[in-house]
């Protein structure tokens, strides 16, 4: 009888155990981390940043937080620059977005029509937009009344109304 194989069997058993353990570790770790697929992450990000704008927009006027219209009306028209003046004097809006969108970086652009031409101003710059950034838009309408109430410098006529598109570019850090 050749019994030399016994040692090999044990070795083999060891190897098999090691292999099984490796496979188990790999599969278990993917279970715990639950990596979502990239597109689903985009969907979620778009959803939540659009929620943030909606919540800001729909916030009742008499609540203690300024709503989106009030925030935009208070703007002094100085564009933000990176990295010295990231919030471009839109601190209220920035604080709101930061509260509602933790762990997210964002830029805010304001687009509006002035004398028939489109103007796009950078209002908040938190950095260069990442690869998987999503853009959501909301509109506010400013009048002379809202602007002067909030102390902004939009310079609107008494009977003028200006639609401003608030463009939020958000990405995960």
């Amino acid at each position: 009888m050749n019994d030399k194989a016994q040692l090999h069997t044990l070795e083999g058993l060891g190897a098999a155990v090691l292999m099984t353990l490796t496979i188990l570790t790999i599969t278990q770790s993917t279970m715990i981390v639950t990596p979502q697929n990239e597109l689903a992450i985009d969907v979620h990000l778009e959803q939540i940043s659009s929620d943030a704008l909606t919540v800001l927009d729909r916030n009742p006027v008499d609540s203690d937080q300024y709503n989106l219209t009030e925030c935009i009306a208070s703007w002094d028209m100085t564009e933000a620059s990176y990295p010295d003046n990231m919030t471009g004097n839109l601190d209220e809006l920035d604080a709101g977005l930061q509260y509602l969108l933790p762990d997210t970086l964002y830029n805010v652009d304001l687009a509006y029509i002035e004398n028939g031409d489109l103007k796009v101003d950078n209002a908040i710059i938190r950095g260069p937009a990442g690869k998987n950034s999503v853009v959501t838009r909301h509109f506010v309408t400013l009048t002379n009344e809202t602007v002067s109430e909030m102390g902004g410098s939009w310079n609107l006529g008494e009977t003028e109304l200006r639609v401003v598109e608030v463009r939020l570019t958000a990405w995960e850090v």
Partner: protein
Amino acid sequence: MMDDKGQIAVDFLLGISLFLIALTFTVQFIPGMFMSGSAGESSLDYTAYRTATVLVEDTGWWGNSTSSGTDWEEHPGNVMRIGLAVDDDLSSKLTNSPNIISRKKTLQMMNVDKTTFIEMLGLYNNVDDTLFAYGYNISFTQDGNVLMLNNTSIIRGQIVPEYKETTKITRIVLMEKGTIASFTGDDLTSELVNTATINITGPFVENITIQICDLNFTGLSPMFLNASLDGTTLIQPSNYTVCKIDGWEKSSFNGSLSSPTDVLSFNFDKELFSSSSEYRLDLEFRNVTLPTPGPPFIDYNDWNSTHYEPAYLVVEVWE
């Protein structure tokens, strides 16, 4: 067979062929493995997405043979769809206020029986006409804690299993939470020096909030001292809580007022105003003037409006 050296060739042959087979597989499949790290159930992602969307952006609907409307919380027996958005027009299925969540609907959602709930929100898989309910956990959270409405924790479903793959969707909403009245220092009426008096008529379904800003300071280190109801001093935090509000952030308040622009937010337990009579609330300060004399005192019920607070809806679904 006397020559043992031939065996090496056979071993080698077997070894190399198996190695080649393994290599072929590796070359074929390894690139695919690194394309995406997930091996999950994609359909669950969208079950969670749809559930959250319907809850946040839809008003819900009820109907029987004669009438229908969006106020399903009043007709729990005929509910056809569960949605939590507030609505001002009961007959239109649309809402003008997505992301604003009705308190009543949320409370009614807690009472919907389990089978109806799963069916209404589509939280099941239908395989050959047999329904397999997904595991789910739906909750509203605020500052990391589960939201309480009418002493009920707003959370439905099972505990999220630790060792299972789940998909999670978070939505930001404004939750209707009782009532709020905001006063400035000049609005507040006072009979005693340094003491603001507010009349409040009960009862309330939720805790009430009083917000005060722009107080007029007269001396050094102005302070809020205490609150009393019909002469009885109230105790923190069982009767009421106070915090300072800065935009969207709440910070703790130790009593000393630092700047006139501070916004104070008082939250009173609804149990204090349990009967439907008028209560007198005194807020005692130090070194604060309240220019408007009383009586008559300012009335909370004339000033209040619905209180909305940001909250998160978290929907988690698993097999």
